[in-house]
C-alpha cells in the first residue's frame, strides 16, 4: 500500500509526529493493557446503574405484565417499538462504515469501523431486547421462530412483517457479529502476543490461532471482503424491513410507500450521530486524537447533513402526499401529527432532525468538536422523537374517533428506555477495556501513505506543486491535534 505516495491534497488520516507501528499498537492498546482511569470508572458506574435499572424495569414488566407500561387499547405500541426502531437505526452506521465504506475503498473508515461496529452490535442487542420485552408472553417468544413442532404444520406467518423482522434482526446481528469478530482477530493476536499469564491464555483462545502468516492475512482480507459484500445489502434491507412493520399496515400515517428509503436514511443519520457521540468522547478520554481526526469528524458530519436532508425531504413528501391523496384519514393523521395533541413531539422531531442540523452546512460547525457533539445529541433525541411520532401519533387517532386516546408513559416505560441506554454503555465501556477500540492492523495500513508525518516529508521534500502544498496546509488548520505552527517554516 505504501509503495506510492498519496496525493498531497488528500488530508491525512493519521496525525502526529513520530508515529510508528509500535506507537500505534501502544496508543490503541493503552486502555486495554493499563488499569482504567477515573473517567472510565465514573462512566461505567453510571452505565451499570442504568443497566441495573433496565434489569429491574424489565423484570417488573415480566412479573406484572405489559400493563405496567402506559399502553392502552388504542396505542398498542409506544416507547417499546420506538426504542426498538431507534436502536436498530443507530446500528446502521456501524454496518455502513464497516461494509459499504470498505467496498468503496474509503480508507478513513479504518479508524472508526471497530467502534462503530461494536456500537452496531450493542445497539442491536438493545433492539432485540425490546422485541422480547414488548411481547405479552415473552416466554412464548419461540413461537416466532419457524421451528418444526408437533402441531401438525403450524408454521409462522410469513405474511407478517414481524416475522420478516425476526429474520432481519437475527441475520443482521449474526452477520455483524461475525464481521466484527473476524476483523478483531489480528488485533486480538496482537494483544495475545504482548500479554502474559491468564490474559495470554484467554486472548490466545480468542485469537483462534492467528499466526500472522501471509496466507492468514490473505484469507483475512478475502473473508473481510466477502463479509462486507454480505453486510452491504443488510444496510438497506434491515431498516427497510423494520419500516415495513408500519408501511404494510392499514394505519393512516404508517401506510406509506416512502418508508423504506426514508427509514434507511434516518437510520444512517441517527447512527452517525451516535458514532459522533461515542467517539468524540472516546478519542479524548483514550487519547486517540491522532487516529480519529478532525477529518473523520467532518466526513461523518457531511454524511449526517446528507441523510438528514433526505429525512427532511421525506417528511415534506409525506405531508404533500397526504394532501395529494385526498384520503381523509391520511390527511387527518398528518394534520393531527403536527397540530394535534402531540404537536410538541412532532415539532421537536422536525427541529432536531431537519432545522437544527442545517447548521452543518457551515464548515466551522462541522469542524467544531463541541458543536458536533451537541448536534449529535440533538439528532439522537430528534430521531427518537421521529419514531415516537410515527408510532404514537398515528395510532392514537386512526379511523374510528370513538377509540381515539392519548398515551402517557409510566415510570416503567421510561426506565426500560433509560435502562437500555445503560445496557448499551455498559457493554460499550466493557468493550473499550477488553478489545482495541480502533482496528490496529487496519490503521497501520494507513501509516505509510496517509499519515501526517509522511505527507510532511513530501512537503519538506519540496517536490510538489506549491498551490497544492498551500491547499494542504490550509486544510490542516481545522485539525485540533495538529500544531499548525510547525508548518510555518516548511
Amino acid at each position, binding site marked *: 500500500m505504501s509503495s506510492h505516495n498519496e496525493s498531497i491534497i488528500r488530508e491525512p488520516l493519521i496525525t502526529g509526529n513520530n508515529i510508528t507501528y509500535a506507537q500505534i499498537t501502544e496508543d490503541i492498546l493503552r486502555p486495554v493493557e493499563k488499569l482504567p482511569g477515573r473517567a472510565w470508572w465514573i462512566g461505567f458506574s453510571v452505565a451499570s446503574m442504568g443497566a441495573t435499572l433496565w434489569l429491574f424495569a424489565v423484570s417488573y414488566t415480566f412479573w406484572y*405484565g405489559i400493563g405496567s407500561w402506559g399502553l392502552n387499547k388504542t396505542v398498542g405500541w409506544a416507547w417499546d417499538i420506538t426504542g426498538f426502531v431507534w436502536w436498530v437505526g443507530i446500528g446502521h452506521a456501524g454496518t455502513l462504515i464497516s461494509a459499504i465504506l470498505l467496498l468503496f475503498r474509503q480508507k478513513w473508515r479504518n479508524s472508526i469501523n471497530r467502534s462503530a461496529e461494536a456500537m452496531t452490535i450493542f445497539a442491536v442487542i438493545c433492539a432485540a431486547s425490546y422485541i422480547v420485552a414488548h411481547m*405479552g*408472553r415473552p416466554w412464548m417468544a419461540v413461537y416466532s421462530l419457524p421451528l418444526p413442532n408437533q402441531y401438525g404444520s403450524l408454521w409462522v*406467518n410469513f405474511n407478517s412483517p414481524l416475522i420478516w423482522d425476526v429474520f432481519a434482526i437475527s441475520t443482521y446481528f449474526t452477520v455483524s457479529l461475525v464481521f466484527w469478530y473476524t476483523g478483531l482477530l489480528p488485533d486480538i493476536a496482537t494483544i495475545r502476543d504482548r500479554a502474559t499469564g491468564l490474559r495470554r491464555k484467554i486472548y490466545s483462545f480468542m485469537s483462534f490461532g492467528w499466526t500472522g502468516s501471509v496466507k492468514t492475512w490473505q484469507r483475512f482480507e478475502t473473508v473481510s471482503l466477502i463479509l462486507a459484500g454480505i453486510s452491504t445489502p443488510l444496510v438497506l434491507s434491515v431498516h427497510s424491513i423494520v419500516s415495513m412493520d408500519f408501511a404494510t399496515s392499514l*394505519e393512516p400515517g404508517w401506510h406509506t410507500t416512502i418508508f423504506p428509503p426514508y427509514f434507511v436514511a434516518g437510520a444512517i443519520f441517527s447512527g452517525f450521530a451516535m458514532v459522533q457521540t461515542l467517539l468524540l468522547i472516546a478519542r479524548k478520554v483514550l487519547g486517540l486524537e491522532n487516529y480519529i481526526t478532525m477529518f473523520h469528524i467532518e466526513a461523518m458530519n457531511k454524511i449526517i447533513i446528507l441523510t438528514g436532508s433526505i429525512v427532511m425531504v421525506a417528511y415534506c413528501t409525506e405531508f404533500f402526499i397526504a394532501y395529494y391523496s385526498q384520503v381523509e384519514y391520511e390527511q387527518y393523521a398528518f394534520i393531527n401529527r403536527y397540530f394535534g395533541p402531540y404537536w410538541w413531539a412532532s415539532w421537536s422531531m422536525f427541529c432536531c432532525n431537519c432545522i437544527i442540523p442545517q447548521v452543518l452546512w457551515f464548515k466551522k460547525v462541522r469542524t467544531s468538536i463541541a458543536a458536533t457533539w451537541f448536534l449529535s445529541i440533538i439528532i439522537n433525541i430528534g430521531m427518537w422523537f421521529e419514531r415516537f411520532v410515527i408510532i404514537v401519533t398515528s395510532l392514537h387517532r386512526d*379511523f374510528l374517533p*370513538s377509540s381515539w386516546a392519548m398515551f402517557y408513559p409510566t415510570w416503567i416505560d421510561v426506565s426500560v428506555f433509560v435502562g437500555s441506554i445503560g445496557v448499551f454503555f455498559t457493554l460499550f465501556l466493557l468493550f473499550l477495556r477488553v478489545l482495541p477500540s480502533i482496528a490496529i492492523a487496519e490503521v497501520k495500513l494507513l501509516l505509510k501513505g496517509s499519515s501526517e508525518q509522511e505527507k510532511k516529508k513530501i512537503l519538506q521534500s519540496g517536490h510538489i506543486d506549491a498551490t497544492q502544498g498551500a491547499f494542504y496546509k490550509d486544510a490542516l488548520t481545522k485539525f485540533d491535534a495538529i500544531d499548525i505552527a510547525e508548518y510555518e517554516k516548511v
Partner: protein
Amino acid sequence: MDSNKKYWKGLEELNKTPEFVEKNKHEFAEPIPVEEVLEGGSLFGKTPRRDFLKALGFGVGAVTLAACQKVPVHKSIPYLIKPEEVTPGVANYYSSSFDGHAILVKTREGRPIKVEGNPNDLLSKGGLGAQAQSSVLDLYDSNRLQNPKQDGAEVDWDSIDSFIKGELSAIKAGGKKIAIVTSTINSPSTLSVIADFIAAYPTAKHVTYDAVSYTGIIQANQNSFGKAVLPHYNFDNADVIVSFGADFLGTWISPTEFIGQYVKNRNNKSLQSKKMSRHIQFESGMSNTGSNADVRIPIKPSEEGIALINLYNAISGTTLPGSKKLDNLPAENAIAVAAAELKAAKGKALVVAGSNDVAVQTLVNSINSLLGSYGSTIDLDNASNQFAGNDAEFVALVSDMNNGAVDAVFFLDANPAYDYHNPNAIKAALKKVRLRVSFARNVEETAALCNIVAPNHYYLESWGDSNALAGYYTVVQPTINPVYNTRQAETSLLAWSNGTFKEYYAYVRDNWDKKLLALGGLTGLKGWETLLQTGYVKVADKTATAYTTNHDLTAAAQTILAHSAELAGGKVELQLYQSIALRDGKRANNPWLQELPDPVSKVTWENFAALSPVYAKSLGLEQGDVIKITANGYSIALPVLLQPGQAQGTISVAVGYGRTLAGPVGEGKGENAFPFNTFRNGAFIGTAVATIDKTGDQSELAQTQTHHSYEGRNSIIRETTFTEYKKNPYAASGHFDEHKTYSMWDEYDHPTFNWVMAIDLNACTGCGACVVACSAENNVPVVGKDEVRRRREMHWIRIDRYYSFNKGGDLITKESEISQLSDANMDNVSVVYQPMLCQHCDHAPCETVCPVLATVHSSEGLNHMAYNRCIGTRYCANNCPYKVRRFNWFNYWNDARFDNYLQGEHTQLVLNPDVVTRFRGVMEKCSMCIQRIQAGKLKAKMEKRSVKDGDIKVACQQTCPANAIVFGNVNDPNSEVAKALKSERTYYVLEELNTQPGVGYQVKVRNRTELEA
C-alpha cells in the same frame, strides 16, 4: 399345523458350538457390569465409555420417570351418583322472573351462570336490560351475609326467631305501631304474607317506599280519573311522542319494555312500510331517551312546568291563569310544533313527563285526555304494578318514628338510610325504634342501623312470583340451593306471624293453587309444573277504555308556576336523574354495572356533575374540575363532565352512587345525590336550586370514549332524515356509487356457513344491555376505574356514541368546526349510537400481521383467536381499523389488584365454563359467541337436521330489547340476517378499506324536517 421344521439363526446354532451354548445361557449376550458399577471402587475406577452411556441413559430415564409425578386431581364434578337433571357440560334452563320480567336462568352443573330473557315475556319479548343481565353476579357476591346477625354478632335463626317473636308480642301488647317498609312489591304471594303478618299484628302497616318513586303519576291519576294507579304506557301505539324529561328508554318505569315498543315504529320493518314515529324530547340533562329523540330541546327544570302549561294551552286553545311565555325561544317554537303534531296525531299521540310532581302529572293527564291518548297509548285499565311507592306515607312514618310512636320496623329491599332525602332524620328516628329488622343481604346503610339483620335469599335462591302488569303473573323459582345460611324474608315473616305455613314454598303453591293457576287455565300439580316451565300466566287484557278528565287545572298551574319561580330564582338549577347502569344504586356492588359505560357520557365507576360546555366555560370550569355542589343544605364534590345538550344554567347529577356500605366494589364510587331530593306536595322532587364552588381539585373521569364527534367520516356513521329516506332509501347508504374493487388476497370459501351480523343503527338506543350480556357470556374481565382511565376496558362489544351539532341545517361533526360554533348551535345536539365489535372481516388486517398465526380465518367467515398461540405483540390491535381488539394487560383473573371484581370466594362460579378465561399477555376480542355456534351445530347434528335460522343467537343479539342486532348465516338467503343485510340502508363501516367486514350497519334515520335538521 404340525411342522417339524427348525429355523436357525446361524451356523453356530445349527452346529451348537460350545461358545454358542455358553453365550446363550445368559439373557444378554454380554454381561452387564452391575457389580462392577455398584462396587465402591468403581466410582474411582475408570468407567468404560459404554458403561458411562448406559449409566447416563438409565439415570436420565429414571429421573424423568421420577419427575412424572401425578398432577393433583381436582374433582371438579364431585357427583358419585349423577343427579338425573344434571349432565356435566349441558346447561339447564329454569323459568323465573326478574323485576316482573319472565326470564330464563341458565345453570351449569348446578350453578346459575347467565340470565336470559324469556322469549315469551310480555314486557320485553326476550330482551333484557343491563340490570337483569348483571343480576346473576350478585348471587355470588362474597360480601353477602353468611348468617343472621343480632347487634352485629352472628347468631342462628332460632335465636333470631325467639328474640323477634318475644319482642313482637311485647310490642303488640304495648299497642305501638309496627311498620314494614318495602320497595314496591308486586308479588301476590309476598303481599299476602305481609297481609297475614298485619293480621297477626294489627298495629302493623305496610309502607311502600321507593328510592325513585312514581307517586306523582299515581296521585295525579287519582286526581284526574279517581284511579290511583300507574298506567301501562303503549309507546308502540304512538305516532307522536312528546316527553318532558321522562327517560322512558333508559330508566323510566319499564324501560326495557318501552324500548321494544318504541323501536317497533322506527326499525327496519317500520321504515320499509314508510312509517316512522316522531319523538320530541324536552329535558335538562342529556338522557338516553333524549339522545334518541328526533328533536331534542334543552330546557331548564324551571321551564318544564311552564312549557307543559303552554303545550296545554296550545292544544286546548285556552289559557291557564298565570301562563307566560318562556324566555327560551327554541323551546317556545318547539312547543308550537309539538302541539300541532300532537293534535294532528290525536288518538295516536302520547305526552309523558318524568317529574314526580303531582301537579305536573295532573297537567300531563289533562293534555293526554285532550289528545285521546287514554285507551290507546295509555292504558289505565290494565295498570302497571311496577311502582307503587307512596312518598307521603313514608315521610309520615319517619315522623312517627321520631315521635316514638313506632316500636318495630322491618326493611325489605328498602335502604332509606342511603336513599332517603334526609338520611340524618332516618338515623335519628331509628334510634327511637325498639325493634329494627332488616332483610338486607348485606349490611348496607340501613341494616347497619338495625339490631337484627335477617338476610334474605337472593331471587335466584327463592320461590316467589310477581305481577308487574295487571293480569301478567310470573313465577320465581330457585336455581341453586342457598349459598349461605340465609332465609327468605317471606319465610321469616311467616315464622314471626305464627301462620300455618312454615315454608314459603308451600305458601306460594297454596296461593297459586287457590287463586292464580286458574287465571291461566291451569290446575293442580300438573298446572304448577306447566307454570314452572312456561314461567307465567296471562289473563286476557281488559279493554282499555278512553278516559277523559275535566279536572280543574288552576290549582295545579299555580303550584307549577310557584315551583318554577322558586327554581328560577337561584343561580344554578340542579336536576337529579338515574344512571342507566346503577339506577337507584341498590346494585352498586355489581362490578359489571359499575364498569358499564353510561350510554351518553361514557363515564364508568362514578357520578359527575354534567354541565353544558358553554355554561362551564362561562364559569371557568373544565372537564375534570371538582366542584362543590350545595343545595337544600347538603353538599357534595363531584368532577365536572362537559355534556353537550345540557340546558344552560343547569347541572345534572346521577343518584345511585356514593354508597357507604355496599361492599368493596360499590363503596366510595361517586357521591350520594339522593339528599338533594326535596319532599313537596306529597312526593319526592329531584330538582333544586343549587350553588357551585370550585374546589381547585382535579379528578379525571374514567370515560371509555374521549372523542365525541365523528369528524365528518361518513364511512363510519351514515345518517339521513326520514323525508330523504322516503325519497330515496339508498341515498345515505352509498349503494349508488358501487365501484370495482381489487384484492391482493385470495377469497375465502365459506361452503356451509358464513356467520354475519346486521346492526340497525335506527333501532339501537344505546342502552348497553349487550355489553353486560357479552361480559357474562364470554367471561370478560372487569378492570376497574384506574384501568378504564388508562383506556383498557375489556368489553368485546362497545357502543360508540357520537355527537353532531346542527347549524342552519348542516350537520357539524368536525372538532375544528364544533369549536367555532355559536353558543346557541351548541345546544342543538344530535346523537348516534353505534355498537362496535369485531367485524370478522373477510380480509382481516389483523390476520395478515400476526407473526404466529394466532388469529386466523375460519371457513365459516369468522375471525378466530387462538389464545394459546398468541405471544402478545399487539400488532393485530394496532392494525385493526375498528379498534375492537382487547389486550390482557394484566392477569385480570388472578392478580390481587383486581380481586374486588370477579375473584371473590364464589364469584368465579359465575364464569361460563364454555369459555376460557384469558391469561395476561394475550389478545382477545369478540368471537361471535363461537361456543354458542358450536353448541347450536352440535344440537342440530344430534337431532339429525341442519342448523335452522334462529337456532343460534349470540349473547348481544339475544338480550337486545330493541332487536337491533341480527345474527345468522348469510349463505342461507332466507335467513333473517340475509334479509336484513339486503335492506337499502345497509352499509359497512370503512367499506373503502376493503376489509370486507362481516357486520353490516343500517343507516340511522331521523324523523326530522329539513329545516330542523
